[in-house]
């Protein structure tokens, strides 16, 4: 079902453009031109955050933090098997999706742990990545309370996700 949504929207968009007598090719190319410049502008920011995350993992700090935080997570109702996923989610999209695939294979797609992992992934974002990339093209140096509030919401979401998976 969900596979149809975007294709249908694309086709409706084209029909609407024809109705508006819009030059689809010219405008599509005009928009697409912006892609390379955008990527060139954000590359250094993406690289810097990925370097920091890679060092955190290879130094063993993440697995050490995972061990320390597991009991706390457990007390909050979050399965300790998901600590690393929850920990890495704010930093890396590709990394946390790889962890989610591991969880799905290890515990089975319909297990409680896997369902929790799926809901957690579906309702959270790579906060640090989003903040870096979004602010990268502005003059802003101080993000004030943006990241703390985002993280608090994310933690509450994680706890709520595990709670809901138990009853739904």
């Amino acid at each position, binding site marked *: *079902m*969900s596979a149809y949504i*975007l294709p249908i*929207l694309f086709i409706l*968009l084209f029909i609407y*453009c024809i109705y*508006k007598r*819009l030059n689809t090719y010219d*405008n*599509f*190319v*005009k*928009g697409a031109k*912006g*892609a*390379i410049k*955008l*990527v060139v502008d954000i*590359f250094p920011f993406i690289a810097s955050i990925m*370097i920091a*995350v*890679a*060092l955190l993992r*290879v*130094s063993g*700090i993440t697995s050490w933090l995972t061990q320390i935080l597991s009991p706390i997570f457990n007390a909050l109702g979050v399965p300790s098997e998901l600590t690393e996923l929850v920990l890495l989610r704010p930093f890396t999209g590709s990394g946390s*999706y790889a962890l*989610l695939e591991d969880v*799905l294979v290890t515990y*089975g*797609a*319909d297990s409680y742990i*896997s*369902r929790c992992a*799926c809901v957690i*992934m*579906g309702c*959270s*974002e790579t*906060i640090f990545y*989003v*903040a870096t*990339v*979004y*602010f990268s093209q*502005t*003059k*802003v140096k*101080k*993000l*004030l*309370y943006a*990241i703390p509030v*985002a993280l608090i*919401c*994310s933690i509450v*979401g994680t706890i*709520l996700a595990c709670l*809901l998976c138990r009853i*739904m």
Partner: protein
Amino acid sequence: MNIFWLIMMLASMLVLLIVNPSAMLSEMIGASTEALELCIELCAVYVVWLGFIELIDASGLSNKLAKLLRPLIKKIFKVDNEETEKLIALNISANMLGVGNAATPMGIRAMQALDDKSEKANFAMIMLVVINATSIQLLPTTVIGLRASAGSANPADIILPTLIVTVTTTIMGILLVHGIEKLRKKIKGRKKQ
């Protein structure tokens, strides 16, 4: 962001110095190679999305969408600028459809439009980050896809809990940002007296 990055880098480098000093440089270059590969992939994705977004914009659909969402955006973001409202509307709509990759370019443009060159993030900017962080999405398409390919009997049964959580955290985020902003104004007011 500066302080987060500094702590992450320094802590890992200090530990690596003791455990595995030879891995440090190669890991950094490896990660930046990964970032480059990701960016090449993103470039391809952005060509498609920015192309479509230009069509949405040129056909006047984005204005209609912005008009529809305007009362809500005005209330949440406290902005009064049509171009900015349009960018925020597109960013949120893309997030709702679960296409984060289309949301990113719009989010960046919205931030540029909101920038007041003051080096400090303003209220609307923080709101945009928080709303993006709670990922208000109606259909978690990627997750459902992964779950289906892992052999789930009913891959879509996570839609409802996901929706409940994302709506709850989004509302909570909006209220928190509004609350903090009020508190900050009060404190500022007191300092002036």
